[in-house]
């Protein structure tokens, strides 16, 4: 068993708390970049900011409060190819260059509206690098997944029913269309 597996196993046994502490202490990264780079505290802070910008706290907690950045890292680490991991890492690193160019300051120094604007333009622009696009795409998909499939959202906001209602194949659409 290697170190990462050992930590993961301990984290599972203790309900995830060890993992969280471990990450906050910034001792090392869960994400081992195949080219030997490290995903350290700076990268983690940047990812947290991205995740927080994508789904911010409003009258309900946002992605950061729900530790979705840690979920994104876990998924990139465990469920993506090496190619994806490299693109994710270098895309994250190229973010500041892109933001400096378009907005005259680093991503972290931008106010919230500018951060939204910056991510929107990365999301849409076809002239961004493939790595940056890969980063934004993976970060966004995994953020949405981590948020919607968080315990909080699945129990407090959009309760997930383990036992569905009896089937109705002629249910009035108007009841599901809300204000429309």
């Amino acid at each position: 068993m290697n170190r990462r597996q050992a930590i993961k196993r301990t984290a599972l046994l203790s309900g995830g708390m060890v993992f969280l502490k471990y990450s906050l202490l910034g001792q090392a990264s869960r994400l081992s970049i195949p080219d030997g780079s490290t995903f350290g505290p700076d990268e983690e802070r940047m990812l947290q900011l991205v995740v927080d910008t994508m789904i911010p706290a409003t009258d309900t907690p946002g992605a950061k409060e729900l530790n979705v950045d840690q979920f994104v890292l876990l998924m990139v680490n465990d469920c993506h190819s090496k190619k994806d991991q490299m693109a994710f890492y270098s895309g994250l690193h190229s973010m500041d260059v892109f933001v400096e160019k378009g907005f005259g300051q680093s991503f972290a120094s931008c106010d919230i509206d500018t951060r939204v604007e910056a991510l929107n333009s990365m999301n849409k622009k076809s002239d961004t690098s493939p790595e940056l696009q890969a980063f934004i795409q993976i970060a966004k998909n995994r953020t949405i997944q981590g948020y919607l499939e968080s315990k909080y959202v699945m129990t407090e906001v959009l309760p997930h029913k383990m036992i569905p209602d009896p089937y109705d194949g002629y249910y009035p659409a108007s009841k599901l269309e809300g204000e429309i």
Partner: protein
Amino acid sequence: MANTNIDSVKQRSYDAIVIGSGISGGWAAKELTEKGLRTLVLERGRDVKHIVDYPTANKMPYEFEHRGEIPHATREANPILSRAGAWQEDTDHFFVKDNEHPYTQKKPFDWIRGYQVGGRSLLWARQTQRWSQYDFEGPARDGFAVDWPIRYEDIAPWYSHVESFAGISGNQDGLAELPDGEFLPPNPLNAVEDHFKGVLSERFEGRYLIASRFANLTKSTPTQLAQGRSQCLSRRLCKRGCPFGGYFSSNSSTLPWAEKTGNLTMRLHSVVHSVIYDEKQEKATGVRVIDSQTKEVTEYYAKIIFVNASTINTNLILLNSISSRFPNGLGNDNELMGKFVAFHNYNTKVRAQFEGLSEFATFGDRPGSTYIPRFRNVFQQETGFLRGYATAFSARRNMYSDRSGIGTDLKESLLNPKLGGWSVGAQMMGETIPKESNYVSLDTEKTDSWGIPLLNIDIDFDENDRKMEIDSIEQLSEMLAAAGFTNIKTTQKRQAPGIDIHEMGGVRMGKDPKTSLLNKWNQLHACKNVFVTDGACMTSTSTQNPSLTYMAITARAANHAVEEMRKGNV
């Protein structure tokens, strides 16, 4: 054998041995123990006790570390298994990993296995349509394989027998090509499925959309309550194992039932090496078992032996059961064993959208969907290919949310999903023709961890399959267009056989010992106290999901075996 004293032999002797505890082995165990036979069931894997050993059954999605996904490195290490859609984080513990029991693919073949008590009955798709007379008459009429030694009338009472016990939902549709049975209330159809059903009945003679028949309890009856099983709650989490016994599996139904008789002995971690043949008595006397944990070899003895190891492993065991009387495998005088393996073709799918009936949506969930029985070449040959295909059909209307934004816009949109339009999907389920060139055989050099020869698998699609795929795309597209469905999209996959998980044959039934291995009671022609009643016995494949037919064939053969034993014939 180190220990062959009489007491020890006695301790290892039973009336019957059943090899395998999956969907057919479970039925053999139930029927034989109910009839009073002391029965030993050999399972190569670990125990999976009903409810107790379903560790993920009640977990919420967020309780899975990767939210259901299998990690990338695990997928990379299991290229075959990773093609099975049902293999996810919540079902991982019920699947055999690629390196656990390797085999040689002469041509690509995805062999998906579940080595545990209950086998793949924990994981099956639960579709249970009967075969009709047109299916059993198929090979004789169309001149392929050999004639089935049985007809629909032979099996019909046994279909009823297993349906009543297992609990099968369905509608009495009155179709000769898909006979009715003993059904619990059918699955409800939705507005668009009913619309499509109407269009078919008005404009396509001989084509019908029906509620699919499936092994989930739409109602619990005293028969299933006596098994400790209650109504299906439509959780659609069947593959994790159902704590309510809402669907049929060996674990929830036949095995605990057999256990209650007091006549059942289960031996776990028991990899069967071979069936033992006694040349003086001219019959099989037992089986040779390798303990997968200790590698110890033990022999068990019985008067009758049921081989239900699942199609390919049943072929493996019998081919490996070598004696001077049977140098090519037990009962394999004609050297046809392992050959004429066939499967089901799921290669094409047609999807579309529907703008009509927008006043309706669906709410809640249901365990099944709908089914279009085979309509090609049913009553006579009418196309440029042999046989035909059934179709699985469903219509749904999902909620969706716009994910294009960032920030509060995105959050707002995610938390307020909107009702989308209707979408429909139709998937072919084609019959394939058994051929001598589609076969499994034993490797002459390589062996597995237990010293048993590795299997070579050499199975592929053919020209008839391709023609049928094209026809299914044309016909299903035309039917969907006639119903006013739009944006019709077709896919024609090139997936390897095996992933349909309906491999059949190799030890086929037939009338003539020269051209088949089993007689009409599933006895090896040349060794009458060995019965094969899993997928290996299938002479042809038809289009229907095969499990219900395995169950009926098994119950029929087991009852015959008991009668023959009582008469002293086996």
